[in-house]
């Protein structure tokens, strides 16, 4: 059942928040041993929140737009009273003192928080295999990855463990797992959503975004979490809140006259089923009244290396806070160890291999003698990529392309060759470098019976047009089976 259908049913009194929450918890109990999405289930807290919504309804008081809807939260985002690990041994046992802004807003809208879901350590990864708690499995095929870094979020929504999840997207970490798990994932415009209370990876790229079963569900969740916040100086809303009110309606508006750019070069290196998905989606938009325009984005080809240099450099600065002093893992020291040994040993023990690689490389890219050739050069390429996308989005209203080069791949491949996995981000990082909104949505099943997906980009702060095109595509998309194939095989 979609989030909006469930919220409407609770509003109408045909079901209750308690029943919805019990149903979601029962699915978690039945299937999460196989999927591994959760790192913490807050059954008591969820049932109490649901009971509060039901009491509110019984008293005839107005309910919020997410009242009684069970949701999950990527374990990179602070929820008061629940552990916050960032998928890392570094933060084992850490308890955040309060909610992130996005979590506070979800609660104010009436959402019921089921618990925290898995991710690649500190959001660094594309497969959810770099997680201290172990890998998440794709609900469509338990031998395959769910994508990352918000792999727990995507697997949870696909499995019916709640109607929505909040993930974070630094280089594709909402959109890639959404694509591999057959759900909708939105990366909002940079600044649209507050990052306060979200563990920082690369602060000029990070954005929180919703994963849901439908496009309109994502529009509703985004409306609830969007808006400037005094605790994040980069958050803003040029429309003063007016935009968000129109997003749900935009999903149903149709695409008559919409100019759709199709990035032909982005189809050169994708699997046959992904290419077919994008071509069919383009034809569907044209049939619905949009005009198609072939666009070339030669500079976007440099987005992935620029992204990795910038993200690693920002990570090396952001993760300097894990020093074994104020919070996080502290190494056992001998009597003659000094403060420097405390830092170095605590960080060596607390960080996993991918985080260690990125922090050391980022430190190197910022160091004397290499800064100009790597970090500074990557920031100049970033401007080229952003300006090219901005120019293109003056000629086109949206850009259509693939989200990932292929459908979900087997567990273990990425661990064997980390650099090859960086290529999985080749169609997602440009939106982060440029700060643009983008959405991944399912497009039926590919050749192996795994979900295929397409991606749309729109101009900065034009989520309305993004939702308009995504809603039209969703209506034309081949339907997915109601239950993911991996779950039906679970005894």
């Amino acid at each position: 059942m979609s989030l909006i259908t469930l919220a409407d049913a609770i509003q109408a009194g045909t079901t209750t928040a308690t029943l919805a929450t019990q149903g979601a918890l029962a699915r978690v109990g039945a299937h999460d041993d196989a999927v591994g999405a959760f790192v913490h289930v807050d059954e008591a807290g969820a049932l109490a929140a649901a009971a509060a919504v039901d009491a509110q309804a019984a008293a005839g008081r107005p309910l919020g737009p997410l009242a009684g809807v069970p949701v999950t939260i990527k374990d990179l985002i602070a929820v008061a009273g629940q552990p916050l690990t960032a998928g890392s041994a570094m933060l084992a046992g850490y308890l955040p003192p309060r909610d992130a802004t996005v979590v506070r807003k979800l609660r104010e809208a009436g959402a019921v928080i089921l618990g925290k879901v898995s991710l690649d350590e500190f959001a660094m990864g594309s497969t959810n295999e770099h997680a201290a708690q172990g890998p998440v499995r794709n609900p469509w095929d338990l031998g395959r990855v769910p994508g990352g870094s918000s792999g727990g979020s995507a697997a949870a929504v696909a499995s019916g463990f709640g109607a929505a999840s909040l993930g974070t997207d630094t280089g594709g970490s909402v959109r890639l797992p959404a694509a591999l798990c057959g759900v909708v994932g939105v990366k909002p415009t940079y600044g649209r959503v507050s990052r306060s209370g979200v563990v920082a990876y690369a602060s000029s790229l990070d954005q929180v975004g919703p994963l849901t079963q439908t496009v309109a569900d994502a529009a509703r969740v985004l409306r609830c979490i969007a808006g400037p916040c005094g605790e994040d100086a980069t958050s803003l809303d040029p429309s003063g809140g007016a935009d968000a009110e129109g997003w749900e309606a935009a999903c149903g508006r149709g695409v008559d006259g919409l100019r759709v750019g199709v990035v032909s070069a982005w189809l050169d290196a994708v699997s046959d089923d992904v290419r077919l998905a994008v071509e069919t989606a383009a034809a569907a938009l044209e049939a619905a009244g949009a005009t198609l325009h072939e666009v070339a984005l030669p500079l976007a080809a440099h987005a992935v290396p620029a992204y990795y240099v910038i993200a690693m450099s920002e990570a090396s600065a952001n993760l300097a806070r894990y020093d074994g002093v104020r919070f996080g893992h502290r190494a056992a020291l001998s009597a003659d160890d000094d403060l420097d040994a405390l830092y170095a040993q605590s960080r060596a023990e607390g960080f996993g291999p991918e985080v260690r690689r990125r922090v050391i490389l980022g430190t190197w890219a910022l160091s004397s003698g290499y800064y100009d050739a790597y970090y500074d050069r990557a920031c100049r390429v970033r401007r080229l990529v952003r300006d090219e996308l901005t120019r293109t989005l003056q000629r086109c209203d949206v850009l259509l392309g693939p989200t990932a080069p292929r459908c979900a791949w087997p567990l273990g491949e990425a661990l064997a060759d980390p650099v090859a996995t960086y290529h999985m981000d080749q169609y997602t990082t440009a939106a982060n470098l440029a700060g643009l909104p983008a959405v991944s949505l399912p497009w039926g099943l590919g050749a192996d019976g795994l979900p295929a997906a397409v991606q749309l980009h729109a101009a900065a702060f034009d989520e309305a047009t993004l939702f308009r095109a995504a809603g039209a595509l969703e209506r034309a998309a081949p339907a997915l089976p109601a239950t993911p194939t991996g779950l039906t095989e679970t005894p």
Partner: protein
Amino acid sequence: MSQRPAGGAAGDASAATTVLDTATVRRAARLARIAVRDDELPGLADELERVRVFVDALQGVDVDHIAPLVHPNHDAMPLRPDRVPTSADAGALTQDQALANAPATRDAHFAVPRVVG
């Protein structure tokens, strides 16, 4: 260490030469305050050099008259007002909350190894 291929990095010569050798990685790890054992260094240097070769494709892009972009929406990093929050502010932490996740505390302070002898 194994010979690295040129990696198609726009014909850039540096891709064919090892930049991240064990000495450079040891120095970067020291700057990052991450302890790396001597026996881990060759393998780590090899992994990092492969990533460097991958990102070295940037060396072939003409950026001569292009200014760096460090933030997507602002020319300068936006700043909040320079004001000390008080306990009345939303989200302000009490001393107990601030210390609650510390691995070691003493007399309401974070405790660390002796810094001065």
